[in-house]
């Protein structure tokens, strides 16, 4: 059974070394441990000053936009499972934060941004590269607003079949055709089942 796998023993990245929102947002105010000691309750005198309401109004006052960034795209796809290992693409290093790029609209009149994701297969001969690429593409098309164009490619020099796979993933018709294939759909769905 193990022999079937293209790479039976891949390197695994420790979860605490994976990029996370916490790391990239160091300024967020951390609640102190003492804050819980004197909790505030909705007031009898002025029910509208209840903590929920006040935190709501606080958030509405700073209802400023949190833009979709590379980390958010990473969080969407890093939890996809690898089709051969019970591990996430993030922990296998198949998707990396540095290999995700959001390109703004090319002209001021266009609303269309592009998300470019480069995939690094665990071995250069990994035969499941196309399936992984397809899974990432499907996930992003479903999870990002339509103003994003999703461009999934194999990172240069990491796969022997990169050109062919890139051609497949870039071709709308072929992606659509692939998603008509029941067994392929099942594989992709199993991969995506671990996504939160």
């Amino acid at each position, binding site marked *: 059974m193990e022999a079937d796998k293209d790479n039976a023993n891949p390197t695994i990245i420790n979860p605490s070394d994976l990029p996370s929102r916490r790391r*990239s947002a160091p300024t967020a105010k951390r609640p102190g*441990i003492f804050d819980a000691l004197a909790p505030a309750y909705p007031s009898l005198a002025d029910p509208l000053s209840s903590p929920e309401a006040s935190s709501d109004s606080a958030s509405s006052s700073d209802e*400023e936009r949190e833009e979709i960034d590379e980390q958010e795209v990473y969080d969407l796809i890093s939890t996809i499972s690898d089709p051969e290992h019970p591990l996430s693409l993030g922990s296998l290093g198949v998707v990396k934060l540095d290999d995700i790029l959001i390109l703004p609209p090319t002209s001021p009149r266009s609303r269309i941004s592009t998300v470019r994701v480069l995939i690094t297969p665990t071995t250069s001969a990994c035969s499941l590269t196309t399936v992984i690429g397809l899974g990432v593409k499907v996930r992003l098309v479903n999870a990002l607003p339509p103003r994003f164009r999703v461009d999934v490619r194999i990172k240069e020099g990491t796969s022997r079949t990169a050109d062919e796979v890139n051609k497949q993933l870039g071709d709308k018709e072929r992606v659509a055709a692939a998603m008509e294939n029941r067994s392929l759909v099942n594989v992709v769905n199993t991969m995506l089942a671990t996504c939160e």
Partner: protein
Amino acid sequence: MSDIELYLFEVDKNKAEAHDIAEKSASRLEAKKLKLIDLITSLEPYINNKDDGSIRAKSVGYLADVLAFLPLKALSGQERRLLCDFILGRIEGDLEGVGASARALVALEGLGKWDVETVQRVMRTFIDNTHPLRQFKLQTERYSIVQLIDLLLAKYREASRHLQEADQEFMPSFISYFEGEKDPRNLMIIFSLLQVPMTEWDVHANAQDLFDSVFNYFPITFKPPPDDPYGITAQDLKDRLRDCIAANSDFAPYAFPQLLDKLDSTSMNTKRDVLQAIQACVLGYEPNTINLYSVTLWDALKFEILNVQEEDLAVESLKSLALIAARLTDSADGPLNAYLRPVIKECNEHLEDAPTKQSEASGRILHAIAVSGYTAADKVVKGILPTLFSLYNGSQSITKRRGLLEVLNEIVAAYIELGASQPEAKIEALQASAGDAVDAMIRALVSAPKAEVSFRLASLKGLAQLVSAHGVLSEKESGRAVDTVTDIVLHEQLEGHGNIRAQAIKALTDMAHSVPHAVRDRSLPAFMVELPDVPAEASSPGPVLEAFAQLSTERQIFDTVALRLKNKYNSARHQGAPQDYQRSLLLALLYTFTFGTPTQEDGITRAAYFTEYAAPLVTDVASSSEHQSDSSTLEIVGRIVNVLLRPQGIHLQSTVYNHNVQWLASAVKDTSQAMNLAPFTLHYYAALRPEVADAEDIVFVLKAQADLALNATPASKGADTVLRHISLLVNKFINPKTMQATLEASDIEVGALLSGIPSPQAISVAFAVVKGLLIQGKTGALATKYLQALLDLLSTQGRGIAQRFATLLTPDDILSKENHCLVSGLYKQKIFNQAVPFMTAAVRTADATSKPNYFIALSGILRWLPYSVIEASLPSLVAPLLQTLDLTESTDQSVKASALVIFESVLMHDSTIVAEHTASLVTRLLNCTAGPTNHASVRAKALQCLALAPRQLKREAVVPYRRQVVKRLQACLDDAKRSVRTEAVKCRTAWLGLDEGNEDDE
């Protein structure tokens, strides 16, 4: 007609009647009205009926039934012997009714013990004449026979063993006798009776046949039929079969190869059974036998751990490996060495390319083996650590070093577990390497780049473990470990990625458990250096203070931590440190007493803590009332007093109360001061037992508080505290019997408060009083009347009233049993039962302006109720709750949020209730997802509810909305808030998933 004729007539039609007939014959026999010889003679024409076998069988059945009804001593020894001969004689010539014969024999045995000769004759007769058992088609017949044999083996151990010893031919026929049995009821007995020969007889010569006879059934794949009346499960059979497999060391040459062969099965259940059986064998067979197979077993079991297919299989394999080590430990050194040599060799090989799945698995293997005993642990340490350290020192790769440390941590963890269970430690081997380990880990923590989180965490964990492994580190080494971790806690000011302070604090607390003196002598002074008496402008001692307070969770250093905090607070106070700093110190003190582990006496916190820590604070408050501390500091003082005073007995509380009653009374009278002091008085009164306080004083305080509340300006900050105080006094101190009179005397009778056009202050006070009463539950009629008065306001007043209903059930840590309040167990149900039906009825007839009032009040009540309370009334609540979602004012956001929470629970637990409202629910939820009119929390909650719909509602009910929902959710994917987008993705995935089901159906 004779009894036998009647019996034969009835037996096929009416079993019970036939039984009665047999019972009657039995009682006549017993009463000597019928002679045994006559009974037998009467059977003659039937039992020897040449033409019809079934009549012969039924006649034996009659005899068996009669015997079964006979009481002890009804037959003489001679009669029993004769009957026995008669029955056995029949079997030799005629196999009809053999099951009944077996039953008859069981009954006979019950009437009197057999001698050796009889036992052997019975056994021989059956084995010789009825072999093989499977020739009898009826399960019941076979069942009776195996029961008889089970009886013989169970009660006449010697006799049956002699049978086997005397005749070499006996055993083969005995083994093959049961061949081919398939019925689970029979198998249960056969597996059980075979245990006797397997464990007690010398079966060396027949071991393989005996083993195969049971192993043929492995693995058990039996599935009990639905409503199986016998209640035999596959697990029952598995357990008995496993006991057979593990019964005799002579089975090992057949058992291990076949079990390991089946370990390659593709069925996970088979593998589970194999691992269970292997464990049973390891425990059951002799250590000498295990020794022969230990390496073979290792070679097979390791794959389950190195390449985990299912986690539970890995866990069971590890357990098996540990059991082998434990079994071999008992004997001489040789076998254990022979077993561990290949294990250690392979693990060392895996370490070379750490970190990999294999190196991680090696850590688990070594942990499992080491935890089996000090002897094995010792060998693991001697075998692994030299390689581990040379690899560690020979590599510059941090990732590799991390992988190696993780394996080391696994081994040390085993020592900690051993230390907890086995007092006689043998730790020399680990001690020898501990110095190197500590050095490496300290170096990692001090010099490695801070961004290498996993490496530093592994080192931190390792240090904490080494310190905790009893006796492994020298005092100097523990000291260095403690210093290093303390330094991280105190001086690393990293934010975001690379911050490991939380883990460091945890590690330091763990260390404090093992080496309290080291932490007390080295860490605490270092902390104190970082905490100034008066902080300089720029420095922020907050994080240090938080870390320091957390150390109080370890009991052994609690007193030192608390004392240092108190001294620091006193110096800060006397040197006029900023209020914020003083308040932080008090908060730290409060934290230690709330979450730390102060010493207890008779189950309550020591009284001395109150006198030493709280009493001086109260004195300060009393004396400083002129120049007023700010009320947020006073609240913390109040809370410290509360937490230390409330568990104390009446005696101490009375002393405290009488000591303070004077100055408090005068302070409460002074309006400006009272408002400021309110947070302190609230918590102080909350701590008191009701019997301690003087009734007149309470009325005085209540009146003063009421005065304050009624005259408060809307802007005044302490008003809320004063209202909580009113609820507290009403609930705890005032006699329910004189409640109304007392309220009138204090000018806060609710009817009076609400008469005319009540002021907002009056309404607030009314709600506070009603809250205290409702929770108390002792003044039923009064509370009901007042609540109704509040409900009546909904039709005439503005939204302010409606919004206040949420406060009635809002949790308040003041009104708790710990604070000696009266908390009725049913107050939530009571409020629900009175308020909710009234509101759902009133809302139907309400006009457009007052309608929202009811929705708001209803949500306010429902929001704090447990789901079980509202469950029964849900059908009538769905309609108003759906309309609640249509509210649009920005002040209604929390109302909508609470309605959504209820829909979430309903969808989760009772989705059928909302099924008929699917259309309007889906539409409204979608409307709630639109920003910016809805707050982010409402949008997120609405998406969570919507995500439940496709899973919880019937497919055909939701499929029509799929297209619409998926389309509208595209907008949510672009929501301004990240948290909402996350929910939108989940929700959309759930709805997109509906499609797949569709394809599968086709």
